[in-house]
Structure formats: C-alpha cells, structure tokens
C-alpha cells in the first residue's frame, strides 16, 4: 500500500494549503492590527497599539458597538421565538399548503442581501420606519428567523411525536407538555439558534447599510471606512470583535459540556 500512503500525505498537504488560504485573511488582519505601518508589507513594521488606541478613542465605534449589541440581542431573541413557533407548527400539524409554508419560511436567506436591503428600505420607508434601530431589528429578524427555524426543526425531527401525546394522556395540558417535554428536548437547538442568529445579525452589513440611516452598526462603520483610504483601524475593530465572539462561543461551549457531564453523572 505504498501508493496509498503517498496519496494520503499529498491529500493532507493539500488540506493544509486550503486551511492556510482560509485562515490567511484572519491571521493577516490580526497581525496587521498590531503593526505600526499604514500600508503593511514585508518585512513588517514594529509592534504598536496605535490602531486600538484610535478605535478606543473613537465615539463612532463605541456608538456602533452599542447599536450592534442591542440589535443582535433583540434579534436573536425575536427570531429564535419565531423560528421555534414555525418549526413547532411544522412538527405538530398537517395542513393545506404546508409545502408552500415551509418554502416561504426558508426563502429569505436565498435572496441576495443587497436585494433584501433594497426591498426592506423600500418597504420600511413606506410605513415610516426607516433609519431607526428598530428598522435594523425588523430587517435582521426576517433574515435570521429561517436559520433559527432550520436549527430547531432539525432537533424536533429527532423527537418522537408520541412523547407529547403520552404526556397529554397522563394528564398534562398542552402548555405543561410544551414546558416539560418539548422545551427541554429542544433546548440545545434553542441555545444554538440564539448564538447563530446573534452572530449572523452582528456580522450582517448589506441590509443594515441600507436601512440603518445614522444609527450604524459595527459592520456598517467598517464598510464606510473601507470606502475611504486604507485604514488599519478596520483590522483592530475586526480583531476585537472576532476575539470577543470567539470567547463567548468558547464559554457557551464549556457551559454546555459541563452541563452534559453533570447530567451524565446523575444518570
């Protein structure tokens, strides 16, 4: 099996190259954010925190950061609620036009973001809601709900529909069955949906750019900086946001794992 080993090695090398390509921009932005040169080139300049200091002292960035956090928190809550309801409807009922209902519910992510932004702005300005924080929330909820629904639906598909029926037979009313059977079963998916939708909303720039007006979110600020000259502040903002979201994800992961371990110990 000599050829096989060589092939495996070649494939692993290839995999390595692909990973280098995928991580090149992320690492580069991390390195450039600590680099003193405005136009980074090889060899690199010296270590500096100039760009971080600049964003720290920039009120626009702070305001955008607050907006982004508020928007993504509200959006993740709203779209997970809606997504849960949509997925549960699909799980529990059969009705006329269900295929169309599912198709429509999963449609928004396939529409290009520019078009979503355009349509959202046209619609929201007609009903007098454009340029507010709430308009970003509305637009992002539309975008994120299908993701939440897909994640929760996957989990619900693994659940035995008879479980709920059994609970009703044993005297639980519908709310109690929902609280004690469906909700605990889907909890991992709900947590995942919350994280996913918060991340999507926090990172989304095209729709937010159209509807935000003066209430910008972080990605919109980056996009507008990008239209000017080369500005390494972008790297500093990007790295800061990346490290924050990675920390949150790792904390969430550790919490989930430790809870699983606890549950295993009990049983």
């Amino acid at each position, binding site marked *: 099996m000599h050829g096989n080993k060589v092939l495996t090695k070649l494939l*692993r090398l290839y995999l390595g190259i692909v990973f280098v390509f995928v991580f090149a921009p992320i690492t580069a932005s991390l390195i450039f954010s600590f680099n003193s040169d405005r136009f*980074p080139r090889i060899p690199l300049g010296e270590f500096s925190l100039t760009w971080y200091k600049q964003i720290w002292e920039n009120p626009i960035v702070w305001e955008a950061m607050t907006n982004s956090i508020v928007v993504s928190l509200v959006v993740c809550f709203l779209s997970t609620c809606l997504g849960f309801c949509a997925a549960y409807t699909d799980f529990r009922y059969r009705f006329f036009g269900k295929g169309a209902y599912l198709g429509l519910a999963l449609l928004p992510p396939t529409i290009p973001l520019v078009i979503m932004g355009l349509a959202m702005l046209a619609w929201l300005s007609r009903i007098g809601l454009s340029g507010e924080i709430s308009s970003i929330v509305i637009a992002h909820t539309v975008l994120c709900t299908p993701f939440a629904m897909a994640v929760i639906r996957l989990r619900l598909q693994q659940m035995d529909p008879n479980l709920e029926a059994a609970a009703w037979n044993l005297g639980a009313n519908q709310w109690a069955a929902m609280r004690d059977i469906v909700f605990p079963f889907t909890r991992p998916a709900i947590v995942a949906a919350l994280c996913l939708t918060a991340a999507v909303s926090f990172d989304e720039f095209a729709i937010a750019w159209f509807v935000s007006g003066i209430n910008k979110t972080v990605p919109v600020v980056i996009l507008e900086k990008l239209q000017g000259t080369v500005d390494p502040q972008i790297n500093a903002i990007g790295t800061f946001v990346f490290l924050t979201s990675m920390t949150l994800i790792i904390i969430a992961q550790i919490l989930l794992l430790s809870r699983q371990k606890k549950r295993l110990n009990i049983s």
Partner: protein
Amino acid sequence: MEPAFVSVNWTKMYSRDYFWDAYWYTLGLACVSTITTSVIAFPAAFALAFRTSENVRRWMIFFLIIPFFTSYIVRAYAWQVIIAKQGVVNGLFDLVGLGPYTILNTWLGTIIGYLTLTLPLVIILQTISLANVDRSLIEAAYNLGCNRIRTIFVVIMPLAKVGLIIGALFCFILSFGDFVSPYYLGGSKPPTLSILILDTTKSGQQWPRAAVVAVTMIVTLFVIAFAAVSLAYRNRIQP
C-alpha cells in the same frame, strides 16, 4: 415617488447594453466561482472524509466554522492589503525574483473574495455528504477491480451527489448576490448586478430600475436553484 403601473422601467433597463454586460459578467463570474470552489473543495473534503480520523475531522470542521464568526468585510479588507501591488504576496514573489503581479482590481481578486466567502461552507457540506457514503460500496468497487480515480467518479461522486450539488448551489447563490468582493477586490470594473443595484439606488435614486435588476436576479436565482435541486434529487441512488 408616485406608484403607477408602467413598463417603461423594464424596457429602459432591458434595452441598455451595460445592463446585459453586467448580467452576463455576473453570471459568468458566479459560474467560474462555483466550479473553482467545488473543484478546490473536493480534494480537501475527500481528505477530511476518508483520510482523517473521526476526532480530527470534528476539529477540522470546527476550525472551518470559525471564519463564519469573523466579519466578511474585514477578511475582504485583509485580502485587499495582502494582494495589493505593494502587498505581502507580491513581496513574497519579489523575494524569488518574480512579479509584481496585478491581482487586486481584476477578476482574479473577485474570485479570491468569493472563495473566502464560500470555500469553508462548501468544504463542510461536501465533507458531510462524503462521510455518509457507505464504505463497503467503495471496498466493493476496489475488490471488483475498479481503480482509485474511477471509483471516485463512478462510485463516490454519484453517492454524494446531493451534498456536492447543494454545496455548489450555495456557492452560486452567495457569489451571484455578493457585492463586497467585486467592489473592493475586483475594482467594480465591469460592475456586477449587485453593484448596479447599489449605484442606481445609493447615488442615482433610480429605485424602479434597481427593482428591475433585483427581480431579474431573483428570477435567475430561482431558475438555477430549481434546476440544481431537481438535478440533485433526480435518479437518486438510495443508500
């Protein structure tokens, strides 16, 4: 702006050459991106699915999810700096006495941007579908004297067809609608349809015309998505 039912925006937009130029350019670029991404992703997904242990694969997929938590615009900006004329890539070429090459503001820059956006997703989708292929069927093909390359094309790819096509479809949808890569890495010359939408709304205030472009894009996407899905599920080999 007064609402009225008129067809003038359609005839105006469809009679312009620049609209059709942008349309074919966008479509071509999205096709090139789809094929490139799928071809680049396949060996990597193959390696992950067949040549790594379960544990390693899980970690690798976790690493491939990380890019989704970094801002796409920041990554595009990083590429802008890396592939610029004075940038890192040309710096490396210079060390071995080559270059400098113009990558930024060409179609190649756009493709690099599209790859950044879609490659991790396509690799994940392909890996999942390849990992679900029944190993005993591959062994059977080897035992019956089928060589490695032929096994890939005749046995593995048809079995993993759904995942491969869905991955390609996602890649197409994302590249077709994206405006960051063609704008910041491709120099927006010629413009793609999404840049056309931005130009007509942000600077020209020509909303109805932008809507014409948008509807054309959505119809194109629906046709392609429908074709891809029916291709994926046609004559599906039941595992």
